[in-house]
């Protein structure tokens, strides 16, 4: 077991550092009519600052796509381009077969949007807000159905300004799913919600998917992406660090195992200890763990705290951040 540098093809059994990032996006998905969103080389610039730097995305119809990333990663800007609210400085974008930059009017009839925050007149009541929305919307729906669906019946005569943060997000979601649009774009739909409200929002998103709708959402919550999304992308500093189905992303990352060695025991060649704890990243967990256990058995070493686990989205997310921080520090130096 020899640690190897990152990059290049890895044979089974090769141990790699836990902070490695696979930079090539694992984008898959059908093109053409089965694709709800297709983005190639998207670039967006605010003055001299380039917020989005060459993003490729593909979201098949009927799937839930989660865009993860840190604050300022470019998630909301990317969504705004899909919604037709921001100009792109480069790249191609197709949403439901239309260019949102030039065909926003046709697109909005088929798309529901939840903004990251705000968007309501605080002096109107919940009922008045939904009734007004019903008159402005293209797709028909019933305010009563949505009040009930999002547990707002008892708050219908309360002014929006007096709602809690969670209630406002539910009202927001109600307008986004109004009339069951083909594509629903949700910008951080559960930020600031209590567990109950978050659960209800997840249920609503799963219902949309079961109804054949496509959902594109941004989130800070890794467990949300794992629970809801068919396809995930992690965005960092305006670029997609990784993208694909959850299985593809996890399979592209090393799994790991760890154990605490007794005092005086030297670890296998090439494996460093952190205190008395040994940590190994590997692309072939079964083979390397078997070899490690055989090594321990031969020497009669008793391992405590032995743990083995596949890569998690959290590992990948943090490795992307760590890699970037390391790169920045190196560049500064």
């Amino acid at each position, binding site marked *: 077991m020899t640690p190897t540098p990152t990059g290049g093809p890895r044979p089974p059994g090769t141990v790699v550092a836990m902070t490695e990032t696979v930079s090539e996006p694992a984008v898959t998905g059908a093109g053409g009519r089965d694709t709800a969103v297709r983005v190639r080389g998207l670039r967006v610039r605010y*003055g001299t600052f380039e917020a989005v730097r060459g993003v490729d995305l593909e979201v098949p119809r009927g799937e839930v796509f989660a865009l993860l990333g840190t604050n300022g990663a470019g998630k909301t800007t990317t969504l705004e381009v899909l*919604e037709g609210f921001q*100009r792109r400085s480069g790249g191609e974008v197709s949403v439901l077969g239309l260019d949102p930059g030039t065909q926003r009017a046709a697109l*909005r009839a088929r*798309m529901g949007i939840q*903004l990251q925050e*705000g*968007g309501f007149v605080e002096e109107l009541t919940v009922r008045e807000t939904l009734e*007004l929305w019903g008159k*402005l919307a293209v797709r028909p729906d019933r305010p009563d159905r949505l009040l009930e669906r999002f547990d707002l019946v008892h708050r219908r005569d309360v002014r929006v300004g007096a709602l809690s943060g969670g209630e406002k997000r539910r009202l927001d979601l109600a307008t986004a799913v109004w009339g069951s649009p083909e594509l629903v774009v949700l910008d951080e739909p559960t930020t600031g919600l209590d567990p109950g409200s978050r659960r209800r929002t997840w249920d609503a998103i799963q219902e949309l998917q079961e109804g054949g709708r496509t959902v594109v959402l941004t989130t800070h919550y890794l467990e949300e992406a794992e629970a809801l999304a068919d396809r995930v992308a992690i965005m960092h500093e305006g670029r997609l660090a990784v993208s694909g189905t959850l299985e593809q992303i996890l399979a592209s990352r090393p799994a790991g195992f760890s154990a605490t060695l007794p005092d005086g025991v030297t670890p296998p060649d090439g494996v460093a200890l952190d205190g008395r704890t040994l940590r190994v990243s590997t692309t072939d967990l079964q083979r390397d763990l078997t070899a490690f256990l055989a090594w321990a058995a031969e020497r009669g070493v008793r391992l405590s705290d032995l743990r083995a686990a596949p890569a998690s989205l959290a590992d990948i997310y943090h490795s992307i951040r760590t890699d970037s921080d390391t790169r920045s520090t190196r560049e500064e130096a």
Partner: protein
Amino acid sequence: MDRIAALVLSELTLILRNRTLLTSVLIVPLALGVFLTFSQIDSPTYVVAMQVVFALGMGVYVGGTQTLVARRQTRVLKRFRTSGISDGGLLVGTVGPAAVLALGQLVLFGLFDVVAGLPAPGAPLALPLAVLGGLALVTTAALATAIVTPSAERAQITTLPLFFVVVASAVIVAVVPADGWPDLLALLPGGAIGALSRIAYGAPWTPYALVSLVVWPVLFGWLAARNFRWDARLAAV
């Protein structure tokens, strides 16, 4: 049209619920207009010009700018752009209620002026032209001023310069004898309102009033079309 009507009704409801807006859009211009009617000022051109300029200037320009900025900063404009209403319809629906209230006030002022015994205008068509031209001026000016106004509260300040220019131009042109260079004052924003009030009461038609009537709304409209921001967030370039 149904969508615009729904938005206008909703905005009217909101004006009635918001005391600050109600005061600036309805109560102050109404009080000033009624005061002018019964002030015993013996210049009908002055009274009419002031009534038009206050109803439109305070009600539509100041109130409209406040509403546009408030709706933009709270992202209401952005949300409504995701509905079925067109961008033009959204602007009409947002500023329209203030315009409807201003026109209602002007109708009331007309009735009060008749009751108070103000002389009837000799060329009455000049007055609707002053009102419509003034409405175009203050509406486009509200859209343009919203570009440089960061919050609804700041609209009280950012609207002041143009508001004073419009009021001063209308009043000066209404009372200064139309002869020689003072005629050029009609070219200022609001000058056409004063000039048309004077024309309504017997002064000769001046081309400057008509030029002013068209040029300023076109200029402010062009500025708004180029730079109007729908969202509090930065726009990409």
